[in-house]
């Protein structure tokens, strides 16, 4: 293994641990994230995958797309199974990075309890949440990670109710409340940032958490060629923010110059096509609140100027950013 610290996309080893031939859709953001995370983590890694798209595309008996040890059992136990693997490997003198690669349903919702347990015990594991904002493997159902207004099969566009009525859960605030050694949000459109964060997480001890937004072509009803562009626009509109919490200090790792209107992000995705001005304004207002909470309220964002109820205050706990 290379001793040199990876800091840019050029430093990523070409030696794949998650190899091609898997069954992911064209343009799958999750496959891009997993391929590169596994390149950075390298061969001395043990993978746990809960029920998700990832297990289906990579581990159909008798084949595997992972060149590392790999275990799957159920949906809600990533924090727990990885705890057990790490305990056993430590006792057997193995130094491998134990990584859980879970979806948003398996993390925000059904897996939250086991995740909290592992974080609270500060288990020496790396937990990665691959967030495509819904239960995509079961056919696009709403999760706690699904954004406001989005169509899913369980938030259909009806005559009385259109799309999801609740806003995305602030998972990272929950993670931050456990005071882990390292937590960071990642984007597949910001690869130098991505590489640094995975590398940092790999080299730390204790509970580490990485949250990656992974656009989903069938679930978001987007063009396969636009996956990275959508991930980029998520950051530019404030639908996704890039930061890290390193030993308790929070730091923004990329700040867009000017907040783009959320419509720039929405218009590339069929899941938002039904949204009308009222709901778009409601989402924009929520985003402006988040933007100022996250980046501070010093410079006014033009896109937020026409909205009256925006709170231009930072989060009361100065060092603890409030995240999307």
């Amino acid at each position, binding site marked *: 293994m290379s001793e040199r610290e990876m800091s840019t996309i050029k430093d990523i080893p070409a030696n794949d641990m998650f190899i091609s031939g898997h069954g992911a859709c064209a343009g799958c953001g999750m496959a891009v994230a997993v391929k590169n995370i596994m390149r950075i983590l390298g*061969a*001395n*890694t*043990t993978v*746990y995958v809960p029920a998700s798209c990832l*297990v*289906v595309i990579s*581990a*159909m*008996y*008798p*084949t*595997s797309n*992972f*060149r*590392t*040890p*790999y*275990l*799957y*059992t*159920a949906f*809600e*136990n990533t*924090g*727990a*199974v*990885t*705890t*057990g*693997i*790490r*305990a*056993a*490997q*430590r*006792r*057997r003198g*193995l130094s*491998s990075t134990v990584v859980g690669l879970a979806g948003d349903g398996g993390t925000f919702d059904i897996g939250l*309890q*086991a995740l*909290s*347990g592992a974080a*609270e*015990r500060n288990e020496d594991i790396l937990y990665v949440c691959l967030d495509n904002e819904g239960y995509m493997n079961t056919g696009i159902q709403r999760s706690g990670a699904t954004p406001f207004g989005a169509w899913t099969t369980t938030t259909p566009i009806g005559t009385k109710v259109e799309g999801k009525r609740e806003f995305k859960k602030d998972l990272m605030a929950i993670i931050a409340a456990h005071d882990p050694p390292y937590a960071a949000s990642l984007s597949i459109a910001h690869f130098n940032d991505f590489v640094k964060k995975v590398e940092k997480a790999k080299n730390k001890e204790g509970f580490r958490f990485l949250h990656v937004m992974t656009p989903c072509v069938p679930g978001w009803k987007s063009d396969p060629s636009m996956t990275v562009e959508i991930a980029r626009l998520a950051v530019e509109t404030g639908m996704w923010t890039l930061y890290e919490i390193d030993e308790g200090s929070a730091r923004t790792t990329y700040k867009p110059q000017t907040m783009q209107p959320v419509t720039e992000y929405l218009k590339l995705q069929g899941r938002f096509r039904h949204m009308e001005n009222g709901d778009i304004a409601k989402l924009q207002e929520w985003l402006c609140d988040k933007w100022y909470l996250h980046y501070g309220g010093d410079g006014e964002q033009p896109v937020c100027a026409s909205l009256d109820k925006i709170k231009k205050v930072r989060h009361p706990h100065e060092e603890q950013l409030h995240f999307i």
Partner: protein
Amino acid sequence: MRVRVLSADHAVAYAAKMARTEVVPSFPITPQTLIVEQLAEFINDGELDADFIPADSEHSVMSIAIGASAGGVRTFTATSSQGLALMHEMLYAVPQNRLPIVMANVNRSLGAASGIWVEYNDSMAERDSGWLQMYVEDNQEAMDATLMAFRLAEDRRVLLPVMVCLDGFILSHTVEKVELPEQEEVDRFLPRYEPLNALDPSNPMLINAIVSPDYAMEMRYQLDRAVDHSREVIAEVDAEFANTFGRRYGGLIDQYHMEDAEFAMLTLGTATGLARRTVDEMRAEGRKAGLIKLRFMRPFPFNELCGACQNLKALGVFDRSASFNGGGPVYTEVAAALCNIPTIVTGHVAGIGGRDITPEYMREMYDVVESASKGEEVRPVTWHGLRGDME
């Protein structure tokens, strides 16, 4: 050998300690908690070198146990009732992945009309999970069965998880004289665990893929055969345990006065001691009563029961849980086992929700079976000890 006065929970904890368990995931539930408390004390006092992992739920306990066992170390945990039910999903991942986890289940009634007292409806509901299941009669057997469970689970011809079931409170919180073996004896009986497969980057392997209909049926059949073949290993382990520690339990079933018995009861758990006494009384009266103690619910001793009942006119089957509309689960399985021999089989449900099984109730069971053995008509299933007018 040292003699100590121990509850069965503590006896199980001593066994797990002497087995040099390496990982103990835990979550509290009455009446199991004494086991994990005792193990936590052993670990914090430096008497046992193991990782004690306080989990967020029993579901996570079994998930941690799976990770640890797949990681290649000896893993033990304990639970009860609602805790076992919460583990249900994860229990099924263990046998098919051939992980030799040992778990004590302190039997306690499950579900509504719920209490904390003994009933077997928690573990009986898991009899189709692929776990081997032992039921014990007293505190000494609770310790000995736990030691045997590790040996059996880890035998390369078996590689299956074992659940040691013991009666809540009647055993778990009641002290008895227990003979503690020497550590060297246990080390001889139970050598250091060497996993056949383990998650290790120097030898990468995928454990538990998604399996299509092209392969799943054969895998399930292999599991069926593995559970069946464990019967031979159980007999070997029983013999070797007797050689090492001087106590013999009879393998799958134990028999008492069955040589010339005309009628008998089949019991499991603590009711067996009372049944043995009742047989003594009836024998003193010149009545040809016998007793079969069921030690393993899985593997189920189909052949062994047929052999033991060849010359028996009637067998009563004791159940400490109901299957509803059909007697208890042990009754239906014994009836299936004996369906090709003429022995009449009757069902006897008692001790539900921790109700005491008095000598009178056991006597009543034997009386019903004796009547059946004489050709008199009796109910197929009787609930013993019901209060009030329940017709």
